[in-house]
């Protein structure tokens, strides 16, 4: 009973237990920094634990942790293989950067009385997302999903201090998110009725390639429910407003993690729970997931071009990027799956950095409309540089992570004999050139309005986390050992389990 053997439960239990403590802390001491410093330390501990888990999984092999020492399939099992270790590291890593980043931005954007609650809710949200990722129990996924979603609704609504539309955005998100979660539960019920078990691996064994209407219906409910949470086109309607009006820090955290986790759950259910050899899966790939992914890639990117609000533009861009991930999954090949996992990780890095830059602009200029970005390269050179690098990464310029994921997607498309798919990926990337290029043009070529007051660069507490994330965008673009190799091994393991 050493700490090391309890490692898998630390990322879940620590934030859940410490979140109420953050609420109880005196808000006035240390200039209101106490809850901030405390939750930052928690987030770093969680990240350290997740990195240790990733290291252990990569070197030793999958971890199976029995909660309360009850053996699966009766007890709840935390099962960590490479795929979810990668997502765990992404979520906790973004968390570890967002928490130190939050202080200045939050102080200017939300009601001072809500600061403690904000940190607690963000911690719970992170715990929920990590829980969804780590668990090997299907119903546990639902519980953690709702833990993270409920705190997300509250976090989005906190943006009401700046713009009251955050309230309606949060309400719409709540309605859509609850419908999605309930669909997911119906799907689980059907699978449970067919198998009598809730452990993911055990469902797979009990199904034994069995194919009937009930399992098909369950599969459909789960994909649609999770598609709602993942903002899969055309179920993304909650997302642009929620990301645009939420506090900037919340947008940065959610854009980098929440939708990725939902995509991960779709991948997990397709491969580990139902199995890729399930007769219904190829039809779902060809007629549901691929067309919607393509539609999302183009439609959302085109809409993004016409947005006047940078945060909303980035949100629409996320819908398109989710399309890329699902498109990769829909190839049904190991390479496609691996490309999806790489893009899932990389997109978290780029969107996190972009939204962080938007948060810096929001702090200093007080707006996230496009006009606020005019002449930004002179007014806030570092923030503008971060936005440009992350934006180029989003487009897929070489030397950035975006290039790696596009490259992986393209080679997966060509290797599976889908040259047309490769063409579509490149074509939709040009749309990204337009919407990112528009903002870059404003920042670099336009002059700031004459009467604009002089502004300072963003504070160091925000620049450093943003800088780390931007550096990660370049580092993982040059050194692909961690992401691509791990994703390939993860995809191999997932496909192997699916056979």
């Amino acid at each position, binding site marked *: 009973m050493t700490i090391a053997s309890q490692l898998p439960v630390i990322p879940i239990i620590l934030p859940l237990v410490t979140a109420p403590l953050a609420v109880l802390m005196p808000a006035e001491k240390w200039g209101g920094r106490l809850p901030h410093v405390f939750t930052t330390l928690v987030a770093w501990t969680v990240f350290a634990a997740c990195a240790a888990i990733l290291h252990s999984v990569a070197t030793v092999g999958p971890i199976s942790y029995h909660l309360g020492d009850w053996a699966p399939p*009766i007890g709840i099992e935390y099962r960590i293989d490479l795929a979810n270790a990668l997502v765990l590291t992404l979520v906790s890593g973004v968390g570890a950067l967002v928490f130190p980043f939050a202080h200045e931005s939050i102080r200017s954007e939300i009601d001072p009385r809500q600061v403690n609650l904000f940190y607690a809710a963000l911690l719970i949200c992170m715990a929920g997302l990590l829980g969804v990722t780590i668990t090997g129990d299907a119903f546990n996924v*639902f*519980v953690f999903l709702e833990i993270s979603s409920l705190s997300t609704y509250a976090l989005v*609504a906190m943006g*009401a201090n700046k713009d009251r539309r955050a309230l309606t955005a949060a*309400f719409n998100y709540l*309605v859509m998110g609850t419908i999605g979660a309930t669909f997911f539960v119906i799907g689980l019920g059907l699978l449970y*009725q067919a198998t009598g078990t809730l452990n993911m691996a055990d469902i797979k064994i009990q199904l034994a390639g069995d194919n009937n209407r009930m399992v098909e219906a369950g599969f459909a409910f789960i994909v649609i429910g999770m598609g709602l949470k993942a903002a899969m086109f055309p179920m993304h309607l909650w997302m642009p407003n929620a990301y645009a009006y939420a506090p900037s820090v919340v947008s940065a955290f959610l854009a980098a993690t929440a939708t990725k986790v939902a995509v991960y759950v779709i991948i997990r259910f397709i491969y580990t729970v139902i199995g890729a050899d399930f007769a219904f899966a190829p039809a779902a790939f060809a007629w549901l997931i691929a067309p919607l992914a393509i539609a999302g890639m183009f439609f959302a990117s085109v809409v993004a071009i016409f947005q006047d609000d940078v945060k909303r533009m980035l949100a629409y861009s996320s819908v398109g990027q989710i399309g890329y991930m699902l498109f990769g999954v829909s190839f049904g090949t190991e390479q496609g799956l691996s490309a999806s996992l790489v893009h899932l990780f990389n997109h978290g890095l780029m969107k996190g950095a972009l939204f962080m830059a938007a948060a810096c602009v929001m702090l200093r200029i007080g707006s996230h409309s496009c006009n606020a970005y005019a002449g930004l390269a002179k007014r806030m050179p570092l923030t503008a540089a971060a936005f440009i690098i992350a934006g180029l990464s989003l487009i897929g310029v070489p030397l950035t992570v975006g290039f790696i994921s596009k490259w992986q997607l393209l080679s997966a498309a060509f290797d599976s004999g889908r040259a047309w798919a490769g063409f579509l990926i490149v074509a939709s990337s040009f749309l990204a050139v337009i919407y990112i290029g528009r903002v870059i043009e404003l920042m670099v070529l336009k002059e700031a309005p004459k009467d604009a007051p002089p502004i300072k660069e963003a504070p160091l507490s925000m620049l450093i986390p943003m800088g780390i994330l931007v550096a990660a965008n370049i580092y993982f673009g040059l050194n692909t050992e961690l992401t691509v190799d791990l994703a390939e091994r993860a995809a191999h393991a997932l496909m192997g389990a699916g056979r």
Partner: protein
Amino acid sequence: MDLLTFIAERYNYWIFIILMMTGLYIVIARGNLIKKLIGLNVFQTSVFIYYISIGKITGGTAPIYVAGDMEARAHGAGHGAPEGAHGAQALPGKDALGVGAIHADETLHEDFELAGNDLATLTGETHAAPHAAPEPQAIHSAPEGGVNDALAAPDLKIEDHAAAAADAVHQAADIIYSNPLPHVLILTAIVVGIATTAVGLALVVRIREAYGTIEEDELEAADDVAEFGAPPAREAAA
């Protein structure tokens, strides 16, 4: 006739589907935010009903421990179900009634046996049952209610319990329990549903404070004014 039987035999699913669609319709069709939340609740509740109905086993009783049942199932020592995960272990009678009853039943879809209780310990400890029982009863409020007299009536005297337990031993072999797991899952889902409703209502209160209305079309009109700085076209035309 066959079609009618087909429909009638699955009435629980029809109820579930009708409720689900009603709820979803209310969420989509109503503009009032409170009505939307009510629709969402109907939608969620329909799923609860679905889960509870799949846990029902024909002829099964409420998944509450029937005194003596475990002994009838025990074919010998060394196979304790509740602690099976940790290795075989005999349980004292009181634990078997309280904690054991909850955990043992969760394993019902498995083939399980409980060891280590003889009738003497059991009847001696039966007075503990009424105290242990209310919790499982509350949790597993199964469709047919408390079937088991020995545990369901807390005001019975101790001698009655002993007698009931002894009687139960004779019938125990053919007791079938309904599956308690869906009920437990739905308890969790109910808690989630309550939390969602609470957050939703809190948001509605805030929206009402900020906008002065909770009608969706009026909210959209107010947002349009905020965004474009002009009254909506409809009013301008009028």
